[in-house]
């Protein structure tokens, strides 16, 4: 019998993989992909609770999370392109203009 519990563990594992990707990788595109992984983990949790309580609100919030993910990907990739035009790199360690 599969329960909400299983889905919450899966969501936690996926979120942690996304965290590891954001913290360890140096390629900015992989970091953006890891953020998408984390948003998917949140969506799994929301929909698991929507199924658990038999209530549609979780699914509505998942739709909003997907909307925010689409907006974030569009703006983030726009920033990546603008940055690549200026510095010819995708390595975040070389993009340190605002580092003190």
């Amino acid at each position, binding site marked *: 019998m599969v329960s909400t519990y299983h889905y919450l563990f899966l969501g936690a594992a996926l979120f942690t993989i996304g965290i*590891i990707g954001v913290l360890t990788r140096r390629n900015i595109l992989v970091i953006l*992909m890891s953020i998408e992984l984390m948003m998917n983990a949140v969506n799994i949790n929301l929909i698991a609770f929507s199924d658990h*309580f038999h209530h*549609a609100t979780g*699914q509505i919030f998942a*739709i909003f999370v997907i909307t925010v993910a689409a907006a974030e990907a569009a703006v983030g990739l726009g920033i990546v392109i603008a940055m690549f035009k200026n510095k010819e790199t995708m390595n975040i360690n070389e993009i340190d203009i605002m580092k003190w």
Partner: protein
Amino acid sequence: MLELILFYIFGAITIVSAILVITQKNVVHSAVFLASTLLSVAGLFLTLHAEFLAGVQVIVYVGGILVLFVFVIMLISLERSVTERQFNRQWLIALIAAAALITEFGYGIYRGRDSFLIPPADAQATADTLTGNTQIVGTALFTNFLLPFEIASILLLVAIVGAVVLSKRKTQVD
């Protein structure tokens, strides 16, 4: 039983391809494994009786966001970044922090496991209201959640304008 088998199949594909997304050297391979992760998450949505969300996941994520990623990968030359070192110097600290996080998550979910095994008291009364999934979601979206829906549309408009402004060629100022 079928639900359990499907959960483990889709869950295993999700976790394995998510790990491959963050460990591949080539960004194109990462994008391909991201597609596999997103599709199996859509499968998980199907096992959770969220058919509309599964469709939205495939159309918006795989058909929209991922294609955007692949376009950007195509625009940006890859030759140099493949030969570079892929991981930060602080990767060990990051792994320890992530291990602490998953331990916390796991402990929290494990402590509350009893409340997930039994459905809530009023679940049976509303059990049959989630059958027409798309209709339920649409009705809720356009009645109770109309204001957030409109705010989301404004957010998308701002994102479109912002993406165009950020990525357009800089005009010469004389």
